[in-house]
């Protein structure tokens, strides 16, 4: 196995790209995809540590994270569809009805 630093570095870079996507993109669907990328970076770190400690716990947690991600995507995309129906746009800057 390669040193765990390599995998952690890759996971950190992917996580940073994901957080950058959340901050600079205005398309709600792309923001959601960036969140998925961050979850995947966390999964990579979990699996790398599971191999490092030779324990199955990390892999089980990845399994649960995948389930939560699936549930989150189902709800999030339903919300986006509903917002698109009422506002006719998924630009997050347009969703400012509650702004004072």
């Amino acid at each position, binding site marked *: 196995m390669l040193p765990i*630093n390599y995998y952690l570095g890759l996971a950190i870079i992917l996580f940073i790209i994901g957080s950058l996507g959340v*901050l600079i*993109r205005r398309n709600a669907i792309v923001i959601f995809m960036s969140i998925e*990328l961050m979850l995947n970076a966390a999964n990579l770190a979990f699996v790398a540590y599971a191999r490092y400690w030779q324990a199955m716990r990390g892999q089980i947690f990845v399994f649960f994270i*995948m389930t939560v*991600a699936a549930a989150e995507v*189902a709800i999030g995309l*339903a919300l986006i569809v509903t917002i698109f129906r009422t506002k006719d746009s998924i630009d997050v800057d347009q969703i400012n009805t509650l702004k004072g």
Partner: protein
Amino acid sequence: MTLQLLLFLILALVAIASALGMLISRNAIYSALFLVMNFMTIAIFFLLLDAPFIAVAQVSVYTGAIMVLFLFVIMLLGAERAAGQTQAIQWQRPLAVALAVILLLEAVYILLGQRGVTPLVTGPLPQGFGSPASVGTNLFSNYLLPFEITSVLLLVAMIGAIVLTKSEKK
């Protein structure tokens, strides 16, 4: 060992390039396809890390189910280019890039500070490490309660999606 390192470097390059492609593409469909590519490379990393079951689950759940759902919604809404270039907050983009660079530098500093970390537990892997059998045994013995809670979570997500997208009665 060097072959493994070469494979890792090539795959890491592909993963980072596809993530950046996801970030930069103007068209949301291209973003989704770049993300599929990224998830596939991460599945190969899982294989390299002796997690075959998680790798297969990654391919079938993430690239199979979740990204198809994304593509379906993008095409349903016709929202490939929905978001405009206008930024409501002018300084948001440069600030975001600056903060990302700072975070990256911190991470590099921390990772280089502990150079040469060797595997803590050396020696051969336990029999069947990461196999479907060991994942299943763990899920249904040590992690039975979280597993059941997850099924309730999925049920709630399903009901929530149906209720949210139901057309309102007059």
